[in-house]
């Protein structure tokens, strides 16, 4: 097992692909573990990328501090990992909780990156997200890891995905139940208790940034990604069709292709950021379509920008509407 030593803690990581760059580093969501990136390691390695996935402190096979886990430590570990086994140019991709760590890393150590991919993530806790987070934490405390999994699974993936696996859900959940420990998940969730919004610092992210948001993600909806799009200078928002919060689990081939294409565009100098908004193709290899001009990408129905503007007042702090 490959480990990185951070102080007295061991951090488990997995490495695939060639010895030399470019490197793509993948950062887990809250209840994820490194093995869930297996399809990405093989797909991206085939494209010539060096791929690093790892378990954050408190997750999977990494050490689990008993009482406190600081997000600063997670960022520091990421820095040590990239310094130790990353080969430039380095692209960093994080989902949900891991997206926060990736955003913080890009703010503090952006010079070490060639590009950033923020997936299903946020820069500040909206009231909805705060309340959902509290409910999930209480669910964990009252019902254990299995109950948390039961709450998260239907939020994370589509009916179509679930429908094909209804008789396998126990087997799907079991590895996560075995590898995660309740107190460590609780510590990870409580690392948000003193969370300060990242929005004021998003402008410091100087690298090309692709923001991926599932079309139907109601855990971290479009408005939260809009804050990222409007504040990160060289960003573009890419909407993943029919995607939910964990589209990385449900659509790994498409997402791996989007990551590889992003890195390729950045390295080839053809990355178009500028706050642009795109629709990803339904499958890998398809064409990204620019979001139709004049329509409001924050709405679930095809409304023209400026119509029913009362909705704009409900956007979270920092979100600017409409898009260009």
């Amino acid at each position, binding site marked *: 097992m490959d480990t990185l030593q951070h102080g007295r803690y061991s951090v488990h990581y997995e490495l695939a692909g060639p010895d030399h760059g470019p490197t793509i580093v993948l950062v887990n969501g809250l209840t994820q573990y490194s093995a869930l990136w297996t399809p990405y390691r093989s797909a991206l390695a085939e494209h010539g990328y060096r791929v690093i996935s790892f378990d954050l402190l408190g997750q999977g096979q990494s050490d689990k501090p008993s009482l406190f886990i600081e997000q600063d430590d997670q960022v520091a570990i990421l820095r040590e990992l990239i310094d130790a086994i990353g080969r430039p140019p380095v692209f960093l991709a994080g989902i949900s909780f891991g997206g926060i760590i990736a955003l913080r890393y890009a703010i503090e150590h952006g010079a070490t990156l060639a590009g950033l991919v923020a997936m299903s993530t946020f820069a500040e806790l909206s009231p909805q997200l705060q309340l959902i987070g509290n409910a999930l934490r209480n669910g964990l405390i009252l019902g*254990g890891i299995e109950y948390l999994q039961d709450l998260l699974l239907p939020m994370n993936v589509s009916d179509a995905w679930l429908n094909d696996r209804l008789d396998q859900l126990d087997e799907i959940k079991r590895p996560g139940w075995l590898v995660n420990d309740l107190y460590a998940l*609780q510590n990870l969730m409580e690392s948000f208790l003193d969370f300060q919004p990242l929005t004021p610092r998003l402008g410091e992210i100087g690298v090309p940034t692709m923001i991926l948001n599932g079309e139907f993600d109601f855990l971290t909806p479009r408005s939260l990604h809009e804050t990222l799009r409007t504040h990160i200078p060289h960003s573009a928002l890419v909407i993943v069709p029919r995607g939910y919060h964990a589209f990385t689990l449900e659509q790994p081939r498409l997402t791996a292709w989007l990551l590889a294409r992003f890195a390729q565009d950045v390295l080839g100098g053809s990355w178009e950021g500028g706050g642009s908004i795109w629709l990803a193709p339904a499958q890998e290899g398809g064409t990204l379509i620019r979001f139709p001009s004049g329509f409001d990408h924050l709405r679930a129905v095809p409304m023209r920008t400026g119509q029913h503007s009362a909705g704009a007042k409900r956007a979270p702090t920092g979100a600017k509407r409409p898009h260009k």
Partner: protein
Amino acid sequence: MRTTLGPLDASGRVPAQQQTRVASFLISAHGAEARLLAGALSSSVLTLVPGVVQVGLQTQLCREAEVLTLLQGATRWQPDPMLLWLLPRWELAWLPQPVAGIGIDQSLAFDAAAFGFALHTAIRPAVLLPREATPTDGFAAALRQIELEGSRTVQPQLRFLKSPALAALRPAISQAVERRHAQLRTLWAEMLAGIGIAIAS
């Protein structure tokens, strides 16, 4: 070496020898936690934390008794001579341990909380059950119940150990918790190895 209890008998139950060894360990540890808590509840340090924490610790004392009676009733016991050696070893390990740099009265309260926190989080009895275990078997149900209740049971300890009022003592508290975690994990792994089950310690 296996990673779960078993092989199960024809009716899907865990062998009596494994039930005896696992239940003995858990009864020894939860009994010790009850004794440690009983002592800690009179500690002066509890006046520094909100009253709700004291109420929670009091509730936990009762829950520890619940674990003991649950296991006593649900386990299929059989004679196990190894317990003559193991039980004194475990009981010695559970004795109160002072926390460096903190007075004895407060120290015992921290140690009781650290031990209880480690017991309910580092020890996960339900993950030992193979998927084929009969869900209606009393022993299997008891292990699941202990693990499930652990998440709730441990909250008063967490609130106590993480209390902002005790922030200045945080390094010593963290050290005590890590020590109890390591101790319990090691002894749990050793006990399981003795019945043919390998887990990471």
